């Protein structure tokens, strides 16, 4: 049982959610309420990680993080070490490949709010940020929760991109998913089995929790 790998995975998941929460709400609301030229393209780009093989994403990230690429050079100059094969690189990659999981449910949740409810809020004297806080979020928060839970669970399970971008560096980029792979290669099926079971349990728990919460807080049906 590789506790540092588990801790690393949980940390990665938690930080991903922390960053994607405001990003998901902001972008999700924008896409739900406004129309602008190129909106279709933006939505397609956001959905891309859903269908792209993880290795493709991993490949492009490696190139972007590389020592010759602008992003890699910038990072190296700022922090003194490369972005690839580091926890920060993983976090970066995690934010990207979780975009559809974070944004799409939230966008649907905001879209489900009738536009005239927002207009009514504006006519009640509420400024746009107040409308977000007092109308949109209270109505769409199950979607926000779903998005965060999905992102967290997906991060725990992501393998291909993590392996390509992070390598298998203990304490730095060896997430629990990688650790399982690592243990199998070391003929240590016992450890692999324990970690797999734990991951399965965590995944089931988080998904079940989010469904139960979401259902509990739906509006009551009209009698």
């Amino acid at each position, binding site marked *: 049982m590789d506790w540092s790998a588990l801790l690393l995975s949980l940390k990665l998941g938690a930080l991903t959610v922390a960053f994607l929460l405001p990003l998901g709400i902001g972008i999700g609301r924008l896409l739900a309420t406004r129309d602008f030229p190129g909106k279709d393209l933006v939505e397609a780009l956001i959905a891309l990680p859903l269908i792209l093989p993880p290795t493709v994403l991993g490949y492009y990230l490696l190139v972007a993080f590389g020592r010759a690429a602008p992003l890699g050079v910038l990072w190296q100059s700022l922090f003194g070490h490369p972005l690839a094969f580091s926890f920060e690189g993983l976090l970066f990659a995690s934010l990207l490949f979780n975009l559809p999981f974070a944004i799409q449910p939230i966008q649907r949740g905001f879209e489900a709010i009738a536009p005239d409810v927002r207009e009514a809020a504006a006519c*009640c004297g509420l400024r746009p940020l107040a409308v977000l806080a007092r109308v949109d979020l209270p109505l769409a928060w199950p979607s926000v929760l779903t998005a965060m839970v999905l992102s967290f669970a997906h991060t725990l399970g992501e393998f291909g991109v993590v392996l390509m971008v992070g390598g298998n560096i203990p304490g730095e980029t060896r997430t629990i998913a990688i650790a399982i792979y690592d243990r199998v290669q070391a003929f240590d099926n016992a450890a692999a089995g324990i970690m797999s079971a734990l991951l399965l349990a965590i995944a089931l728990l988080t998904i079940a929790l989010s469904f139960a919460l979401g259902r509990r807080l739906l509006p009551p049906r009209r009698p």
Partner: protein
Amino acid sequence: MSGLHVRLRQAGPIPLAVAFSAAPGELVALFGPSGSGKSTILRAIAGLYRPRSGRIAVDGTVWFDAGRGRFLPPWQRRVGLVFQSYALFPHLSARGNVMAALGHLPRAARRARAQELLEQVHLAALAERRPAMLSGGEQQRVALARALAREPHVLLLDEPFSAVDRMTRESLYRELAQIRRRLAVPAILVTHDLEEACLLADRLCLLDRGRILQEGPPAEVVARPVSAAAARAVGHRNIFSGRLVRDPGGGAGIAWCTRRLVVDAPPAIPDGAAVDWSIPPHAVEFTSAEAGDATGTVIERLRLGETEIIRLALDPDHATLTVHLPSSEAQEALAPGARVACRFPAAAIHVMLQGDAAGADAGGDGGNGGADETGAWQARSP
């Protein structure tokens, strides 16, 4: 300048060319078919829509002035807007909905004031209920209370009663009438229900494709439309064109195709002018061929309630005439194919000058007397 003053103009996407005002305490109804721009005008007043050009001012404060680039967003305007779909906040109780509009009061005072407003609309007992637990009429009352909570300078009602049943609607009319007595602000009601407009409004604005055809007290507008378009808008049926002919002796008539009618002509219309005229279906009388003004053939006969609706094709131009008769008076002989004659009592004929200032049939853009400084585009009823 107190009250609401609106002047809007744009070519598209929804064409608008209107100017009107509403005094404090006055309810102006914007009436017209779908697409006539009435909801757009309302939303422009609320700040939910930004027109290409124009000006909106309320009690001296300019809310919108395209020329000066001034546009206040809705939350900076004191409007109360009642939506057709209620648009209540589903996650808040009735009281919560009303309190949402009380941001201008100190927190401690909001709950009590919300309760007060709910009492005004007779919903105090349901203050805790969520919208999902309220009937349509109750929801609309909450929406009204919420609109009033804002202490608006203009009250805007966007077809607020079209989604409720008739009985509820009537009690809501009474509700609104009571509230209006206390409220000293202009109110604009958008509706496609003429009866409702006549019941509630002090002034009626007929809208068609973004223009005001006619404006005035509802009874006036309905009884004496100034143009064929206005007449059609208020439901006049038998609208025809002809030429006014004045007798040297002081009488007047209309040359209508090959026919000649006697009318009480309004003095403003010169001899020989092209006119439109209309007559209510119930005023047409059947008579003998010698005494009649026109002859024709019955093409359709329908019964609706206690009324027979008979349509005639008149000689020689097959102009369609609609006649309403009480079923008790209608004879068997008035069947499709029968030849009949009818007369048009002069008192029932309403004459309108063609090509009037607000004649929408004139077509083209801005062809109806351009905008002067105050932007008076509308025609007022005499």
